[in-house]
């Protein structure tokens, strides 16, 4: 295996609704800043891979306009995944492993405010037997939360504690959207939104984008003083039918974490992508995080959830902790699909 490291990361500030800029215009300064920060031009980047969704944009091949942000003339080697940018990172990492590239630019972007996100996400479900009923995304997550609560897997208090923790830490993240000091008891006194979920259990809807540069070996050492080496990277998927899966645990995260060897050594920092508080708890358990781990120093997905970029952002935020020396070993997680259907785990190390 080739040594590959995250050497640069940039993100746009997440906002509830960006009315002035289109998707590409959200991306343009992010791509410009990361290239300028790394001292790279498009010609210095061997491979480009992005993650976005035409369903969010409401038009086919919407990602192609994103290429204007990177400058694709003369033509560049490029690929796209209809998934979070974390999966674009996976593809870029594989590309570097094959020896066909030494550097890659990865980005994810989305502007879910253009549509009704909760309805759009229903289209991820079985088109024959489930979609005709249009279960919205929050209701589907609420079914999972109910299973966890009734099954004694977790409590509403634990869920509220996640919201208080993440949004408190998010205060120091200038790119976050919903942050502040909250009180668990006060949150629990709030009415439910989609029972048993309360507002604080749900991540915000965010327009945003993020970008990352990864590089192999000496190229990474040239580009970063202390590269965040990718020591484990795996993604695992569960079936589409919610009734087949055990929704009170995250088996795919467990398997990915095992294969990425999360438990091989002490973890200092974890960045978890939990779109709902109960999902964050399930992922944290599946990753086997100990008490001493600093979870979501960025505020996590509950502070800002730019769909299609939020997972890549977790890996970027974890990398920042490696670069600044506050962590020697970090784990980052990304998720996709209803009720944590697909999960990606990335282990980063400073040496």
């Amino acid at each position, binding site marked *: 295996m080739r040594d590959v490291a995250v050497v640069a990361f940039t993100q746009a500030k997440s906002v509830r609704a960006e009315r002035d800029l*289109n998707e590409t215009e959200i991306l*343009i300064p992010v791509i*410009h800043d990361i*290239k300028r920060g790394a001292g790279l031009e498009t010609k210095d980047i061997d491979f480009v891979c992005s993650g976005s969704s035409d369903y969010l944009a409401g038009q086919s091949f919407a990602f192609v*306009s994103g290429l*204007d942000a990177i*400058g*694709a003339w003369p033509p560049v080697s490029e690929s796209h995944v209809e998934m979070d940018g974390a999966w674009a990172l996976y593809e870029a990492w594989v590309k570097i492993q094959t020896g066909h590239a030494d550097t890659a630019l990865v980005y994810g972007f989305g502007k879910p405010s253009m549509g009704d996100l909760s309805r759009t996400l229903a289209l991820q479900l079985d088109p024959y037997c489930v979609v005709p009923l249009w279960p919205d995304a929050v209701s589907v997550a609420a079914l999972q939360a109910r299973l966890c609560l009734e099954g004694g897997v977790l409590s509403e208090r634990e869920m509220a504690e996640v919201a208080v923790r993440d949004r408190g830490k998010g205060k120091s993240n200038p790119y976050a959207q919903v942050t502040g000091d909250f009180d668990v008891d006060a949150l629990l006194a709030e009415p439910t939104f989609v029972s048993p979920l309360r507002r604080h259990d749900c991540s915000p809807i965010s327009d945003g984008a993020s970008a990352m540069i990864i590089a192999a070996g000496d190229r990474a050492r040239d580009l970063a003083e202390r590269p965040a080496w990718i020591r484990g990277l795996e993604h695992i998927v569960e079936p589409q039918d919610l009734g087949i899966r055990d929704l009170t645990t995250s088996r795919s995260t467990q398997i990915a974490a095992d294969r990425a060897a999360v438990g091989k050594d002490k973890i200092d920092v974890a960045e978890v992508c939990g779109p709902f508080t109960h999902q964050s708890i399930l992922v944290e358990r599946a990753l086997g995080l100990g008490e001493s781990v600093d979870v979501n120093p960025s505020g996590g997905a509950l502070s800002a959830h730019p769909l299609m970029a939020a997972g890549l952002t977790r890996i970027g935020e974890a990398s920042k902790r490696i670069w600044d020396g506050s962590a020697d070993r970090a784990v980052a997680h990304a998720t996709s699909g209803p009720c944590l259907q697909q999960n990606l785990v990335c282990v980063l190390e400073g040496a």
Partner: protein
Amino acid sequence: MSESEERKPVEVLRTPVVLDYTYSAGQSSSRHLRAFGKGKLLGQRCPVDGRVYFPSRGSCPQHGVPIEGEPVELPDRGTIVTYSVNRVPSENIDLELPYAAIQVLLDGADTILFHVLGESSIDDVHMGMRVEAVWKPEEEWDDSVANIRYFRPTGEPDTPFDQYKEHI
């Protein structure tokens, strides 16, 4: 239900999918489109090599850098750099068939505008032909490229190929 009916696959399942979107053209395209509404053609200059993009979408797709700074106002005349003859009717174009679909390089621009050619026989249209915009009456203007009804020949001498060959 007979056995053969049970084995028959379900071939039609009605699931109406309706998703509403609220679009924004974005900052750059909005400025470009609003200029059309005032009868103006606005391009923008790449900060790296000075090429003038018409329209500009906020970044130079060649250098991948943001395009900022004052827009460049362009004249409504230019040169046909390529064309094709259209024999299929379109409800948005009120020209008689057949007509020429043209790509016009506006004077001072470095990218090409797609439009149609009027007041000309398709036997006369050719690369290098000089053309000018024919606008709709002002009271019909919208924030749209369709404010220009079509381009028509100016009768000026052709632009030599060497002067536009980089822009085809």
